[in-house]
């Protein structure tokens, strides 16, 4: 029974660790499906986290924090759009530049505004997204199996977690059931087809990047005002890149994205759980190795296990009308 309790705990922390990946990977999905690569997810997340923590610290409202994160991330998206759509620049370089901007500016601004070495002040719970306990969670927690699952896994997360889970079917619906989605997928495959159909390639891609920015803001806000209670420098810690890997792993499909992110989250949760524990046969594993485990597995999975992932055909290529 204790083993089952452990499992529920690992799964619950899997969920918590995958949420920023889910938001970020879905953000990337909108951008890449429209034909714009977005290496800048990492930077959007980081800047979003900083904006959320700062705004929440000033206003005392987690929701205003979220709004600030979304606005910041959308602005960065538009910058990326201006460079890579309007000016037809290299999308990778523009994305990397955004990551640099975010990495440097967050520390700089944080220091100037709060004077805590790049950190933002510790947020009180009232300025955070805190756990929501579902009805009867405490009452039925003792019921075998159902109890722990309901109380530990389904109940007890903050609101962004539930939004993330809803964002997955919503994204699927947008992509495959709406006009916008049809056009978005088309512009990522053959912008010429969109152009000759009398639609604006640039405007479609900008809209896709705005969607990307909104979700990137959610990812950032989750890091600083939901998962923790302040911004710390480089707190995105490569999650934007992992999200991109998850996106490839998921072959740019929304439900696959959820699965891939949960898998990466699980590896993360599992490695935390393993720390300091002694395993049969091997004995205690070195912490460094355990921490590296998710990344090693990511590389292995990406290298061999998914077959060929075919990206959107027009991805990474600025659209130029041919003569």
């Amino acid at each position, binding site marked *: 029974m204790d083993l089952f309790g452990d499992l529920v705990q690992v799964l619950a922390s899997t969920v918590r660790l995958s949420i920023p990946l889910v938001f970020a990977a879905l953000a990337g999905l909108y951008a890449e499906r429209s034909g714009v690569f977005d290496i800048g997810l990492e930077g959007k997340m980081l800047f979003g986290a900083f904006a959320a923590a700062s705004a929440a610290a000033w206003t005392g409202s987690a929701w205003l924090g979220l709004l600030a994160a979304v606005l910041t991330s959308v602005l960065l998206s538009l910058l990326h759009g201006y460079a890579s759509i309007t000016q037809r620049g290299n999308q990778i370089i523009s994305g990397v530049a955004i990551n640099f901007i975010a990495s440097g500016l967050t520390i700089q601004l944080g220091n100037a505004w709060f004077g805590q070495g790049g950190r933002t002040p510790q947020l009180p719970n009232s300025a955070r997204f805190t756990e929501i306990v579902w009805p009867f969670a405490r009452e039925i927690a003792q019921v075998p199996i159902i109890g722990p699952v309901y109380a530990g896994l389904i109940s007890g997360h903050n609101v962004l977690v539930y939004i993330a889970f809803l964002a997955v079917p919503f994204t699927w619906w947008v992509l495959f059931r709406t006009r916008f989605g049809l056009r978005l997928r*088309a512009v990522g*495959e*053959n912008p010429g087809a969109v152009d*000759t159909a*009398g*639609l604006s390639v640039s405007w479609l891609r900008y809209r896709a990047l705005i969607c990307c920015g909104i979700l990137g803001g959610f990812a950032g806000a989750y890091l600083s005002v939901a998962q923790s209670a302040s911004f710390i420098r480089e707190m995105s810690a490569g999650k934007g890149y992992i999200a991109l890997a998850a996106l490839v792993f998921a072959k740019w499909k929304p439900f696959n994205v959820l699965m891939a992110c949960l898998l990466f989250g699980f590896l993360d949760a599992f490695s935390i759980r393993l720390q300091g524990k002694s395993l049969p046969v091997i004995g205690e594993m070195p912490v460094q190795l355990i921490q590296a485990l998710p990344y090693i597995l990511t590389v292995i999975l990406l290298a061999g296990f998914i077959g060929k992932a075919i990206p959107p055909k027009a991805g990474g290529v600025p659209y130029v009308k041919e003569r």
Partner: protein
Amino acid sequence: MAEPAIELVGISKSFGPVRANHDIHLKVSRGTIHGIVGENGAGKSTLMSILYGFYQADSGEIRVGGKPVVIHSPNDAIAQGIGMVHQHFMLVENFTVLENVMLGAEGGALLKRGTAAARAELKRIEREYGLEVDADAVIEELPVGLQQRVEILKALYRGADILILDEPTGVLTPSEADHLFRILGKLKEEGKTVILITHKLREIMAITDSVSVMRRGEMVATLKTSETSMPQLAELMVGRSVLLRVDKASASPGKVLLSVRGLTVKDSRGVTMVDNVSFDVRAGEIVGVAGVAGNGQSELLEAIGGIRKAIAGEIVLNGETLDEATRRDPAALRRKGLAHVPEDRHHMGLVLPFEENENAILGYQNDPKYLSGPLLDLDAIRADAREKIRKYDIRPDNCRLRTANFSGGNQQKIVLSREMEQDPDVLIVGQPTRGVDVGAIEFIHRRLVAMRDAGKAVLLVSVELDEIRSLSDRILVMFAGRIVGERGAGATEQELGLLMAGVEQREAAE
């Protein structure tokens, strides 16, 4: 004459210093098929792009149904009932037929309602014009002919009354092209107006009612098709009289110079592109390889030319069986007397930003005659380039000009002069006249025949059946990576067309 469906009045368009269209006047009558011919760069595509709203004219007026209209974007063109079938299909390859047809005309923010309506409308159009396609088929799984049909359906679905087709038969087999022409005839019967852009005069003669000829951005003539002839059109296009047939004596083949045995090539996805191919090319003959683009001809040429790995088979050059290292080394192959004119001059034949004289020695830069010690002998190189320019009538005659500034025909002559003047024993040539104007085609063809008459072995790969038929002494037909037939120089177009479509092979397999 019926009222004009579309009228262009004094259209001019320049790109920087280049005058693409100059004071173009054109009337196309309703319910007719109107051909527009002209050499590459004559301004046909620019004119149609203006009509479809891709570009705006610098001056001039477009009238649709007698009324002046402003067309700023494809959207405006669609609203005026103008549809276009592009040379390179504008389809989303992993979408279904229905999704492609709907794109841009979905009928509402949600797809569900619009899809049902679109499906019904598509069925109606298919029935009306005899254009059956499975609405749920994915584009990339359809043959090219059907993909083109989807493009036509797209235009009709948007209510096009005037349909522009830009070089529609370039990618089709002869039988697919015949089918397309029947469809166009049907459209005409239904009162639609068709504008057909092509450089194939035979198509113009076969299906158009009237024809306009463009030359250097100007409209030089509009004629009734029944009152003109191919030689007259060719002369109008080029501005001088042109020999359409190649004059050549019958071949006198000598010993085998190039022998290919059991050659098999796979592409990067592991698909077999050349499947156990064997043939010989003798001294003093031109062997043509015919086939619809994508049936392995390109891979065959690249494997022989040393730029693609063959997984099996052997190549014998001049009696010497080539070892693996030589086979993968184009420079070594050149030294052994095999010259290669690649299919795509822009990607493989030339470095466009280089000066003409630099391109004229590319691949032969280690030849002692171009070197002085460890350095290039620029004087020798430029003298050599000037000699080739003179001999091949390359214009402009300036060997210091950037290669990108030469026209397609002259660029092709640069490649040909480089390879031919090295006096190879075997010349392998891909698409020697793709994107080359009629005047230059004549010249290139004469040169290839001269190579043959000088006792060289020539392997010619081309998707232009006319070119294959007029130059080759023997014709090999490739289909799905295999040589499915060999015919003599007198093979008819129908016979070759059936082979190219894989008909005989399928029958043999049954």
